[in-house]
């Protein structure tokens, strides 16, 4: 059974796979942006693809939930007419790390819960996802183990594990099978190769350790105790409210809805655009009241939206440990530092009670 789901792709056939696939649909994969940064971009062959990359500047959510997407087209020329629409593109995402797969699973949960979001769900169906396993930490900002996002746990159609001269490829869905059929680059896996995979995973379990000194199951409780913590005030002083941390987050999905008219002022579209709870105007109402005016409250809100609120609503953390928020923060607000500070602070409070 297991064997049927696993195939191998020799490294020399990777280019054949990518170029054949790209003839069928748009293929997007991580490429270098210089300065040690990467981005998902359209590729036609394996040439530009970076197999060993630290998380891209933007997560793959830019394809699943584009920065801007039309929801409605309207015309008021004679009475008014409206057309709810969805924009989508048949494509394959190649080389998605397990942290980003976890991110996509979070978005799936949000948009599947009622009222279901058909714009997201329709588009999602058109995007095939090919995962790629990491054998080691990408850098010091990663914290995937604390949220158990370092190991594959679904959310993909195909999953590649680089085992030296070849990839072990796990087929998870029918869409995955179809890609294999269509490209004809894969071979069946031999016993020795399963042993390679086992060895790889074993080594990986030794490498990846919980990055913060708290068991994940205690994290919601930690946050319950820390709403008024002074840690948030420290972030107030640092945060520039640039919104980078939320924009690069694979699970942030807040949006604004905006109308745009043509020069005739009669026809146009309504679209949604990424927004961020870190930005000054986000929680401001028309009367002028701002319900999260302080940057500390906004930063706190961000952390609670990763570690507390979704645990109640979706039974999972909305942090995937990808480390992007820390990597992108010029003010040096680092997720692991914040968690450590909260842990330390709540520990000291517990101790104080005893003293």
């Amino acid at each position: 059974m297991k064997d049927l789901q696993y195939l191998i792709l020799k490294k020399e056939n990777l280019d054949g796979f990518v170029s054949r696939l790209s003839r069928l649909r748009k293929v997007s994969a991580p490429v270098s942006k210089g300065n040690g940064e990467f981005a998902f971009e359209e590729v036609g062959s394996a040439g530009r693809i970076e197999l060993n990359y630290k998380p891209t500047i933007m997560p793959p959510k830019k394809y699943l939930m584009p920065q801007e997407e039309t929801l409605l087209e309207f015309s008021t020329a004679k009475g008014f007419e409206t057309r709810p629409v969805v924009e989508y593109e048949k494509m394959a995402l190649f080389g998605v790390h397990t942290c980003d797969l976890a991110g996509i699973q979070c978005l799936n949960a949000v948009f599947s819960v009622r009222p279901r979001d058909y714009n997201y769900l329709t588009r999602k169906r058109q995007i095939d996802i090919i995962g790629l396993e990491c054998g080691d930490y990408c850098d010091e900002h990663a914290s995937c183990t604390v949220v158990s996002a370092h190991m594959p746990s679904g959310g993909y159609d195909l999953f590649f594990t680089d085992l030296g001269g070849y990839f072990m490829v796990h087929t998870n869905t029918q869409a995955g099978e179809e890609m294999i059929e269509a490209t004809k680059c894969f071979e069946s896996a031999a016993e020795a190769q399963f042993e390679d995979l086992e060895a790889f995973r074993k080594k990986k379990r030794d490498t990846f350790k919980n990055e913060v000194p708290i068991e994940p199951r205690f994290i919601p409780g930690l946050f319950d105790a820390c709403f008024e913590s002074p840690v948030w005030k420290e972030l107030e002083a640092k945060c520039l409210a640039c919104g980078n941390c939320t924009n690069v987050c694979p699970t942030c999905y807040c949006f604004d809805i905006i109308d745009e008219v043509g020069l005739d002022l009669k026809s146009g579209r309504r679209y949604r655009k990424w927004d961020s709870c870190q930005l000054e105007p986000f929680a401001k109402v028309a009367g002028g009241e701002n319900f999260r005016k302080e940057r500390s409250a906004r930063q706190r809100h961000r952390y609670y939206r990763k570690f507390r609120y979704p645990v109640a609503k979706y039974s999972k953390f909305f942090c995937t440990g990808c480390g992007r928020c820390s990597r992108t923060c010029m003010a040096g607000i680092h997720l692991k530092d914040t968690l450590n500070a909260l842990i330390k602070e709540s520990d000291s409070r517990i101790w104080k009670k005893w003293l």
Partner: protein
Amino acid sequence: MKRPKVGFFDFACCEGCQLQVANFGEELLDILGAIDVVEFREVMSEKWDGDFDVAIVEGSITDKHAVERINRIRERSKVLIAYGSCATIGGVNGMKNAFDLTDIRKYVYGSDYKFFHTEMTKALHQVVKVDYFVNGCPVYPPELVKVLKAALQGIPYYVPDYAVCVDCRLNENVCMYEKGVACFGPVTRAGCNSWCVNNGNICYGCRGIVSNPNEKGMKEVLTKYNIPIEFVLNKVNMYNKCRELVEGGEDDE
């Protein structure tokens, strides 16, 4: 629907923002289908003595003559749009305010300096009521179209009050700070699609500073990256010197 009467005017500026209008190409004809440009000295000899539905004004106010003229334009216009950095925040003309005005006049004109009157540079809203702001040096054409449509619809246009970083990140640029270079993206109002950083340069703050910048945090960031704060403050004044002016700021004479 009658097309609204629109006039273009300029004060102390480089007229580059008006030139952006010509750069629309054939789309300009669509815009001209929606508005009736009745005065635009840079490209038209026609003059209009009626009222304007919309006045689009480029440039900053730098002398008494300009104060009188902008007041006249304001009186004749239902809607006034401050157009480009010089008009919205004083822009590069504001750098003058860092000098003693008599001194700078002498430097430039020598002994004849008295013929050449000048006052502290002001942005338009520091002199008259402004209904819409199109920031940028030069203006970002898509934003001009947006504001123009808002003006025609009679609805407000809110200049984004968040950092250029937002757009910059969405464009997946490598952060300038990653390269060890000071950039004003974190404190500058977005809306230009991070134009300069997209082209390998830094943000110079030409769209003005966000309403509630974290100045202390910004200084810490600069310290962290070993960037001299004085150097940066001097640079931020390239566009934003007029911020310091109180409404109806001091005259030198």
